[in-house]
């Protein structure tokens, strides 16, 4: 085994680096992508539960007509926060959790390119969540819907509260500041991680890992990162402008003072449409890993998968105005964006058929991950089809702002992203914890969730086509909507039961689950080569990659009838390099020393040292944000303090002794 030297101590300044390897300090100061991935998952899952409770509150309120369970103001805050929480604080970071944990493992790297920046992303994301939810104590949460159209962002929940022409009252200003700064901070986290992942994928690949040998999940991460890189600044600008509008009386979006509300819509959806691909592509990547493993076949049409992903990302930049057909952008624009929206169904369809092709004729094992992955293929297709109906402009006029749209995006986001994320959770839980999740409970979880999901969201299509609008806090009796609304509410509680089963499953198996071993699923990619859970340095030897599905090629050779035949570790004839170096491949936990080609075995593995500064720099951001919220001298004091903490953290970051001196 190579020597693991995490601390070449070159003390060049008064600042030391933290050294804790266990306990709470090891988590607060970690720069290990695996720990950060776990923290992302736990935090995002917590937000997922919060968003879920909000969804249940919404459904209880709407279960019967003219209920007074929630007031209009409470309802506005809760549906807005449900959207914001699920998109920015649940699905996006759950995707980031998988990126963080898997990316370096899949490409055979020790860590990401910028480990401290990675920790910074996590802490900034957490700070954004805390900042946004601090509204509970500070006069209310955002209430303008997640897209926060002007003039909703000026008028607030109750138009009679408005003072004068378009001058909002203080409470509403505060909510809008929470919205703009909270998402701004979350955007900084996404931007930092996108830069990090792009550089990691381009630059940190193991030898032989060419771009066309990258696992599909890594490819989807790469594409998602580019989408985040280019989409986040656009919403960033719109959010700054909104903040200046509500807080410092500028005139960007308020029609009463010459601003243009359509500009907000353009800017928001310029970000918002790439965002939906940011939400779904990680799930596509996970499913593309899960289906081949449980079908015992390589992914059907690897390059078609890669290029359809790129095509989706590219076309995703040219369809944003289909969210604005009813806003009066003109027939030429409507027709053009309608067409481009139809085009984007093509690469998405390519993916669906490739997944079907992967399973077709395969030796399918009906495990929980497979069920969730197959669930995505089915449910996402329904959501995709209703999506295509939105591209037909006259049809869109009818269904815009109705529950039909709500049904559509829950089929793609819940039936797509969330199913994909649960497929990934069941699939990778053994890698992360070393133990298997219980299959019986897993199948119960899937069954409940699949039923609950369809019972909740399918009737929304019907209600929407019957004219039930979105974002209403109650409805009159006698509209004919009573029955399906009650059904949906029952469905929502079935989903809640499914999530409870999942949590029970995790709680039980975390300590008492079946021990997994390195490769419990007979999988194909590099992350299954190392131990479960992986050591801090991931691989004792950086693997030499000679094929797509490297691990599979190390385990099997083609027999006479071209069927896979298992080979002893390290003896595959595919791997002349490995002959005579036993232990260098499939079974890294052998006692024998492992020496790869060109490696003298003496060099120590340098792992980046933990650091306090990402946490400190991130902590300054909500402080400055609360400054914008406050007024007078408190504002200046908080802005100054926040700025000092951020820059102090960044200075400490730059000045702390580096463990990465070598270059």
């Amino acid at each position, binding site marked *: 085994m190579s020597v693991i030297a995490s601390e070449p101590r070159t003390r060049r300044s008064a600042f030391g680096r933290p050294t804790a390897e266990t306990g709470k300090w090891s988590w607060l100061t970690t720069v290990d992508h695996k720990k950060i991935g776990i923290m992302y998952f736990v935090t995002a899952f917590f937000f997922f539960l919060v968003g879920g409770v909000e969804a249940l509150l919404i459904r209880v309120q709407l279960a019967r007509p003219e209920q007074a369970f929630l007031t209009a103001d409470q309802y506005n805050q809760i549906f807005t926060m449900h959207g914001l929480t699920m998109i920015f604080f649940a699905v996006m970071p759950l995707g980031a959790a998988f990126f963080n944990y898997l990316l370096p493992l899949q490409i055979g790297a020790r860590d990401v390119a910028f480990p401290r920046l990675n920790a910074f992303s996590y802490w900034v994301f957490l700070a954004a969540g805390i900042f946004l939810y601090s509204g509970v104590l500070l006069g209310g949460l955002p209430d303008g819907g997640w897209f926060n159209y002007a003039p909703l962002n000026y008028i607030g929940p109750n138009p009679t509260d408005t003072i004068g022409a378009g001058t909002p009252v203080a409470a509403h200003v505060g909510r809008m500041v929470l919205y703009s700064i909270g998402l701004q901070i979350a955007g900084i986290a996404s931007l930092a991680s996108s830069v990090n992942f792009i550089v990691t994928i*381009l630059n940190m690949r193991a030898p032989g890992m060419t771009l066309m040998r990258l696992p599909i999940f890594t490819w989807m991460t790469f594409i998602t990162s580019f989408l985040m890189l*280019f989409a986040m600044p*656009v919403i960033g600008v719109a959010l700054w402008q909104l903040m200046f509008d509500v807080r410092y009386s500028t005139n960007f979006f308020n029609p009463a003072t010459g601003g*243009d509300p*359509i*500009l907000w819509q*353009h800017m928001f959806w*310029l970000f918002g449409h790439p965002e939906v691909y940011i939400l779904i592509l990680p799930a596509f990547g996970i499913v593309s890993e899960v289906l081949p493993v449980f079908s015992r076949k390589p992914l059907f049409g690897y390059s078609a998968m890669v290029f359809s992903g790129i095509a989706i990302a590219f076309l995703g*930049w*040219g369809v*944003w*105005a289909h969210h604005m057909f009813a806003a009066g*952008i*003109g*027939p*030429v*624009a409507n027709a053009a964006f309608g067409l481009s929206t139809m085009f984007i169904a093509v690469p998405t369809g390519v993916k669906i058929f490739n997944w079907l092709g992967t399973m077709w004729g395969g030796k399918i094992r009906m495990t929980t991950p497979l069920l969730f992955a197959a669930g995505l293929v089915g449910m996402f297709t329904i959501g995709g089809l209703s999506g295509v109906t939105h591209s037909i402009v006259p049809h869109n006029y009818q269904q815009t702002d109705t529950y039909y749209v709500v049904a559509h995006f829950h089929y793609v986001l819940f039936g797509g992203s969330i199913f994909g994320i649960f497929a990934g959770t069941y699939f990778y839980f053994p890698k992360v914890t070393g133990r298997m999740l219980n299959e019986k409970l897993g199948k119960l979880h899937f069954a409940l969730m699949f039923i609950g999901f369809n019972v909740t969201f399918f009737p929304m299509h019907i209600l929407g086509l019957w004219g039930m609008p979105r974002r209403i806090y109650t409805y009159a009796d006698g509209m004919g909507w009573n029955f399906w609304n009650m059904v949906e509410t029952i469905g929502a509680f079935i989903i809640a039961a499914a999530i409870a089963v999942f949590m029970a499953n995790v709680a039980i198996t975390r300590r008492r689950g079946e021990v997994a071993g390195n490769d419990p699923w007979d999988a194909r990619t590099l992350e299954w080569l190392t131990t479960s859970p992986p050591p801090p340095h991931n691989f004792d030897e950086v693997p030499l990659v000679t094929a797509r599905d490297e691990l599979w090629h190390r385990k099997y050779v083609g027999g006479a009838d071209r069927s896979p035949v298992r080979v002893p570790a390290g003896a595959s004839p595919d791997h002349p390099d490995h002959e005579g170096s036993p232990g260098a491949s499939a079974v890294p936990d052998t006692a024998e020393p492992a020496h790869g080609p060109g490696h003298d075995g003496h060099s120590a593995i340098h792992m980046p040292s933990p650091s306090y500064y990402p946490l400190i720099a991130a902590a300054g951001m909500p402080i400055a944000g609360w400054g914008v919220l406050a007024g007078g001298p408190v504002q200046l004091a908080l802005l100054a303090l926040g700025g000092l903490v951020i820059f102090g953290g960044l200075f400490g970051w730059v000045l702390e002794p580096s463990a990465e001196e070598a270059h």
Partner: protein
Amino acid sequence: MADTEYDKEHAHPGVGQYVEIGVILAVMTLLEVILFESFDRGLLKSVGIPALIILTILKFMLVVLWFMHLRFDHKLFRRVFFVGVGLAFLVFGIVAVNFYVGPRIGF
């Protein structure tokens, strides 16, 4: 192969060339100001404004290609940068067209 790429990356222009580019940039800025002042003395806007835009693009490219040595660097940097510039022009161009052209031709 990787080595040659690395060497190429570090072939930066020399001090003399930097100063030359700096002088050219200064002259171009002067030219821009002269153009602007000439509008008052009868310079046609249909001539002056395209000239200003061309000068801006030239200055932009000079700084990007020489001072940021994108001309001499790994082609990946060129791609990332120009994808960003191109995407910005594309999407905001469409927004601008939607705002300006749409209403004028009667939509």
